């Protein structure tokens, strides 16, 4: 028991590692602030493409979505960061992570938005168009607000996945929360910093997960 406490819940070591972990947490927040909006924006583009009246665009978005949902995000990230330099394309870890997440998250968010858009009845489009609104105005002011509301629980769940997934940025030496905690672990030969990082994830994500459950309940899923 003592060994367990010493190895996993060592408060002294946690205290020592705290500044490093805190800066890692800040980087994770920064990463999320970049990657979530990127993914949502890309997802909107993907959803819009997938309901387009141009068949070629529909097929292209479908191929895109299938491909990037099938490729493991870690593989994608390593290809972008370590593979592309062989093609003469070099970038910072942050840039590589942003691109990988854009490709991955936009395909997942895109499918969610598409389901949302399809849940809005044809009558809504027709009513809006009959008052002279353009396709784009109808999409933006009438359809998308209802669509996002209808799939809000899925959007939030996927966001939780994205936040957790930001930890893969550690493999390209981006000093986010997991990378920082692992650095502290390797210096102290103690697992407590990792536990501390896990607790931080939990503190942030647990309320969000609760929120998803409540939303699902309210929308009667």
């Amino acid at each position, binding site marked *: 028991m003592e060994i367990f406490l010493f190895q996993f819940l060592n408060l002294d070591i946690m205290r020592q590692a705290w500044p490093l972990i805190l800066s890692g947490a800040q980087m994770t927040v920064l990463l999320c602030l970049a990657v979530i909006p990127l993914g949502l924006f890309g997802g909107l583009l993907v959803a819009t493409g997938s309901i387009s009246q141009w068949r070629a665009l529909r097929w292209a978005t479908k191929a895109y979505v299938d491909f990037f949902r099938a490729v493991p995000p870690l593989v994608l990230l390593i290809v972008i960061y370590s593979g592309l330099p062989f093609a003469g394309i070099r970038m910072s870890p942050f840039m590589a992570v942003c691109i990988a997440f854009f490709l991955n998250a936009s395909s997942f968010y895109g499918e969610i938005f598409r389901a949302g858009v399809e849940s809005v009845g044809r009558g809504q489009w*027709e*009513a809006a168009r*009959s008052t002279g609104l353009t396709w784009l*105005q109808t999409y933006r002011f009438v359809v998308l607000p209802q669509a996002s509301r209808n799939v809000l629980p899925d959007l939030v769940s996927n966001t939780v996945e994205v936040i957790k997934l930001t930890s893969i940025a550690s493999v390209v030496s981006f000093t986010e929360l997991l990378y920082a905690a692992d650095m502290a672990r390797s210096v102290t030969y103690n697992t407590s910093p990792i536990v501390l990082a896990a607790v931080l994830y939990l503190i942030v994500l647990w309320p969000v997960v609760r929120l998803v459950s409540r939303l699902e309940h309210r929308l009667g899923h």
Partner: protein
Amino acid sequence: MSALLDVRGLRKSFGTTEILRGIDFSVAAQELVFVIGPSGSGKSTMLRCCNRLEEPTAGHVFVDGVDLMAKGTDINAMRRRIGMVFQAFNLYPHMTALGNVTLALRKVLGKGREEAEAIGIAALDRVGLKEKAGNYPSELSGGQQQRVAIARALSLEPKIMLFDEPTSALDPELVGAVLGVMRDLKEAGMTMVVVSHEMRFARDAADRIVFMADGQILEQGSPAEIFGNPQNPRTRDFVGELSR
């Protein structure tokens, strides 16, 4: 051309089935034309071609002298002159009654919030629902929702209003208020085309009745002619069926 709505040689096919097989008819300013006919005869399709929600396969639709099918016609600009009311109301559920009415005022006509709201309140007042401006559609009865939908179309000051079975989805006790609003519109001089099964309303409010079957207009005339002395056997059957 004195007709406000002029439909010429209108045809519409879905796939290989021809649903509208050459429709010609026109509606004069301030006229209330009722369209009746058996289910599946193409009444809704014909009405929806009149604002190009449905793309005609052939023919022309002129509204206020403008050819809706012509290449240079700005269909969005024309549509705000053509109000449409649907069987299922189709209010925007995420907006209040006032929000429903002001959306097009703001986005299509480019009016500022205050002006749009003033016009919106006036339109809601016309259908007797001024005090419901802040309510969401889910908080309104079917009849109230349909009246908001009418206000939404009215607020754009259309030249003509198209109604597709505006009372069919309503409980009987809610029909009266909607027909009342339509009667007021008629009195105010609105030009209207109404697809409906409300024969009592047709009898005493319509200027003309158009009978459709199998994608064609088989007969048209005053309510007295169509109900009292129909010429076409199909009309006779249909009218007889109704009055039984």
